[in-house]
Structure formats: C-alpha cells, structure tokens
C-alpha cells in the first residue's frame, strides 16, 4: 500500500495522501480550531512519511497532552496518547524495547519544555533514535491560553496578563546543548521546508528535534493582538531568516527573528545501538566460556 520515493508517476493529490494515513471511522472531525497550525504540521508529516515509504506497522506515534498531542489519535499507526509531558519516556520504552520500530513523538511547547523539560533534556542526552516534532505556538492551547516556557518575555497570556516577566526557552539551543544530534526549526508558513526537515529528522539515526513555529490564533494571537491565522502566518514570514543569513547577523539584529532551517547535525553514538553492543559482547563472552 505504501509508496516509495521512486514511485513518481502520476503524482497523487495531497488530500489523497493524507486520507490514506488517517484512521477510518469515528475519529474525525478533529478537535483543532479552524486554521490552527497543527493541521499544517500533520499534513507535512504525512507527506514526509509517505515519501519515506515506511511500513505502517513499523511506526509508533507517541504524544503527551495538549492540542498538538492529539495528532496520533487521527493517524493510522501504533499510537500512545500519554500523560502531560511524559511522551518522551514512553517513547523511550517503545524504542528501546523495539529498536526496529520508527518512533515519533508529537509534543507541544508546554508539554515538552515545562512539565516534560527534564525528560526532554535526557532524551537528547541519550541521543536515542526518536524523532520529536515539537509544535511551538508560544502558549498553552488546550487549557485556554496560559503562559508556557516558550512564551516570549513581555507577551500576554491568561496567566501573564500584564506581560510575561520570565525569560523563554529556545528548545533548539536546549536540545543541541543537551546532546541531540539533529536539530532543526521550521514554520507552518513555509511548508516545503517543514516537510523536508521532518523527513530528514525521521531518516536520521539519533535524537532529532524539529521545532515547528505554529499559530494558535485562538489564544496567543488574540491575547497579543496578532490577528487571525493568515495574519499570523504573514508575520512569521516577515520575521523569518535562514540559518545562513542568521550567521552573518548580530545578536541585536536577530532580536525578534525566527531562524529557520537545519541548526545542528552530528553523528554521535545512538543509545539503543550502544546497548546492543553490550549484549553482543556478553553473548560472545558466554560463547567462549562455554556457558
């Protein structure tokens, strides 16, 4: 049923591809607000998967709690919709038990960076081969617009009604420092790049983070007078700079900019592979001992 990269004849309609990967039955309509950026990420993720042509039985999707984390409910894979912030340790259990499976985590900025912050840095540190798509809408969507660790200083949320007094995290810098071996940032206004970066992350052997800047116009947009979904996408476009361009810019010039693209990639050893080496070593030892 799945297509491969070589299968290029008669290009399929984008919607046909999406439908192939959605679950049959009563899971739709989805819970997202019309125009929410999460749907754009789901579309790009589906097309990236489709291009890789993976066996559907070899993909497990894991998520925490939040609007973003609802995504696996709609998609026809092995799926775990877990507890707030805990998607990564659940995914670690799946991947470590079944290194042959492709494990993908869908999470939000609150989910991954607040309650799940510790799990996030340790998954990066282990460099376990999990692909994490962190949908960053700068706010808690599901609970109605409270501040998150990614809410920029000064911005409004229902729990920072006079402007956020805290500094915000940059998940990409955090992941790189903690040891992730593939770190990229994309945005829902630049879909082809989003798709490409997700595909790269899926194919990468090690921990990959794709942070996706996505609009929550319902809360973040409204509370900060950023307009509707379209206005927010336009803003993202204006604020974005490429990694190459950003390298030539001063910190002052980068203030308020969104740097998009591949931010960090290396070839560190991967956790499951390293553990397997121990298993093999012990097997060999037992063999020579004759027991």
């Amino acid at each position, binding site marked *: 049923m799945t297509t491969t990269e070589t299968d290029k004849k008669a290009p399929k309609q984008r919607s046909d591809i999406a439908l192939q990967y959605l679950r049959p039955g009563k899971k739709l309509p989805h819970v997202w607000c019309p125009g929410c950026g999460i749907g754009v990420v789901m579309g790009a993720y589906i097309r990236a998967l489709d291009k890789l042509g993976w066996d559907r039985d070899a993909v497990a999707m894991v998520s925490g709690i939040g609007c973003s984390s609802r995504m696996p409910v709609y998609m*026809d894979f092995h799926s775990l919709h877990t*507890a707030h912030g*805990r998607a990564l*340790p*659940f995914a670690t259990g*799946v991947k470590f*038990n079944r290194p042959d499976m492709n494990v993908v985590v869908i999470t939000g900025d609150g989910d991954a960076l607040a309650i799940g912050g510790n799990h996030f840095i340790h998954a990066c540190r282990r460099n376990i081969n999990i692909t994490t798509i962190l949908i960053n809408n700068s706010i808690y969507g599901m609970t109605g617009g409270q501040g998150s660790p990614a809410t920029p200083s000064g911005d409004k949320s229902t729990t920072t009604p006079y402007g956020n007094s805290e500094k915000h995290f940059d998940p990409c810098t955090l992941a790189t420092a903690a040891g992730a071996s593939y770190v990229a940032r994309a945005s829902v206004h630049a879909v082809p790049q989003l798709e490409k970066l997700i595909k790269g992350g899926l194919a990468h052997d090690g921990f990959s983070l794709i942070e996706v800047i996505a609009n929550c116009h319902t809360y973040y947009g409204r509370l900060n007078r950023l307009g509707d979904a379209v206005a927010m996408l336009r803003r993202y476009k204006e604020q974005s700079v490429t990694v190459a361009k950003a390298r030539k810019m001063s910190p002052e010039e980068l203030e308020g900019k969104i740097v998009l693209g591949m931010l960090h990639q290396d070839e560190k050893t991967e956790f499951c592979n390293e553990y397997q080496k121990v298993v093999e070593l012990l097997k060999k030892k*037992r063999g020579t001992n004759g027991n």
Partner: protein
Amino acid sequence: MSVAQKKKLLLQANDSCVEGALYAGMNFFAGYPITPSTEIAELSARELPKIGGKFIQMEDEIASVAALIGASASGAKVMTGTSGPGYSLMQELIGYAYMVEVPLVIANVQRGGPSTGLPTKVSQADTMQARWGTHGDYNAIAVAPSTVGDTLTETVRAFNLAERFRTPVTILLDEVIAHSREIIEIPEEGELEIINRVKPTCKPEDYKSSEFTENGVTPMPAYGEGYRYHLTGLTHDERGFPTNNPSEISPKLEKLRDKILNYTDEIVKLRVEMLDDAEVVFISYGSVSRAALQAVSLARGVGVKVGCIQLYTIWPFPDEQLRDLCSKCKKVIVGELNMGQIIHEVRRVLPNDKEIHSLQRYDGEILTPMQLLEKLEEVL
C-alpha cells in the same frame, strides 16, 4: 530432578525478586535508584543484557513507569523496583496503566515515611498507597511476601496476575525482608506456572483494544503484529478512542473494577496456621507474619489456642475468605508496621461482635514474637 540437585542460592529478597522476575520472563526493566530497593535495579542491570533483555536507568520514577508502559505495550514483560517516595512519584503513570490496561510489575520496598522518612528502616506504611495511590476509580492488585523464598514465588505470581488481568501489580516488600539473606531453591523451568497475556486472533480491522469480553480482559497484541491500536489515558470507548459519552464511560470503569473483583478467588492467597480451634487469630503480612508464626508456635507450646493468617494478597482484600476463616474465633489481633492501615479493612469485613485488637509499630523497628505474645496475653 531431586531437591538436592536444585540450584540453591544465598540471597536477599531484593535479589530473589529479580530471580523471580527473570523466571517469569521479565525482559525489560526501567527504574531510578532508591534505598532500600537499589539491589533490584542493580541485579537487573547485570542480568538482563546477558539474556538480550533491556535495562535502563531513567531520569526519575515517572519516566521509569512511562518507559515500562511503552515497552509493555510494544510486547515486553516489564518490572521496576522502588521505595516509598519513588512509588509516590510513579502513581501518575500507574494510573495511566490502569486506564489503558497495560501489564506491569512494581516492587515497592517500603521504608518509613512520610516523605524521605527513614530510608534504611522497616515499615509497612505504603499498604494503602498500593490501593489508593493514584486518582480516580480503579481496582488494584498487591501481593506481599514474607521471606526471601516467597519473594521469588510472589514475584512470579505478580507477573502472572499482571499478564492475566492486563493491569499493574505491586509487590509490597519491606526493608527487613529485602535485606535479610536466606538460602533459597531456585525452581526449575516448568516448575512454576507462567502466564502470558492473551493475543488477539481476530482480523486486525476487527480488533478493539478495550473490547468488553466475557472475563473483562481484552487480548493484547504487541506492536508490529499488524494490529495498529491506540492507547489513551482519556476515558475511551471499546476501540480505545476518547469518549465523553456517559453510556460508554460507566462500562469502561466497571470493566476495570469487575475484571479484578469478579476474580478475587483467583487472586487471593493466604497462609493459615492452627486455625481450627483457635480462639485468637493473628492477622498480618510481610515480615510481621514471621513473628506471628513464631508467636503462635510458642503460645501453642503452653496450650494457648491461637492461630494466624498471613495475607499474601493484600489487594483485592480477601473479604469473604477472612470472614470464613475468622468465623469461629472470638478475637483477632492485627499486627502492622504502621499506624493501622489494614486494620480498617479487617474491621470492615468482620462482624461487629468480633473483638479486634491492633498491634502497631512505627518506629522503624520490627514487631518481635515477644511483642506479639505480650499483646496476646493482654487480650486473652
């Protein structure tokens, strides 16, 4: 094979717990070190890679249970070891495991509390936590060994119950057993029954991950076996997808309850000594039961009609069985290393005309046979 040829080992219960787990087929362990349970993690770390199994030290106890659930859902037989404060942290995701009905085993080596309490001292104060630790309505299974040897068999039983009922099972150890060394026999392959979760036989498209079956337990495939099912901690319908529909909510919760309460007979295990003519009966579990056995044999030596019941199954509480067993005695003494947790259950279960006495110790020390005898004298 004769008894003499069996593998014998000098072990502490933390080690025999791991031996039991390996015997039961454990192939995945995730945990976070905490006294007095650390040896459970350490021995698992040594043994699992030798058999191609997996050991991972997670960043905390919540992460540990998360990893266990991920591994269990994808087909592994899983266990963790912890103690009071760690067990408290685990409760969030133990609740998740009840909800999604994933088998997992938690060995909780109890220590004094609350909070970090007494890391190296004995206690049985997590008895109620094993029943009511997480939020919401659910039914729990907890077993309690009292020797190094029966820690092995109770661990095997815990795995069997977890797999049989698709649910978390707690082994309530106490520090004294955990660290006492005894020579035990390791059972041979095939000697103890091993139960594994039932796999679905239907077509993948017909599979419902939370289906209402006759015995309340839904077959459970591993990942990669063609059944792409969804698990969620949200209240879900038979297919495992979130629901807010009252007509689907109650049946799900009743399923969680009934699959255990309807099979209490199968889960309950008690040891009963000298009960036939007993006028007074000790009820206890864990290390206290050893003192009770000794006290009974000393008291019987001087002609006192006393017996004892040891609870190997704490939850579900053996209501019927205790009512039956205590029908002839006049008085019971409940001995516990806490301020009185199981005594509430005993009071709930036994008729009002029964005299129920409590013997409690919560200073980090064990209850001795002499203390039980003193109490016996007092109530006689």
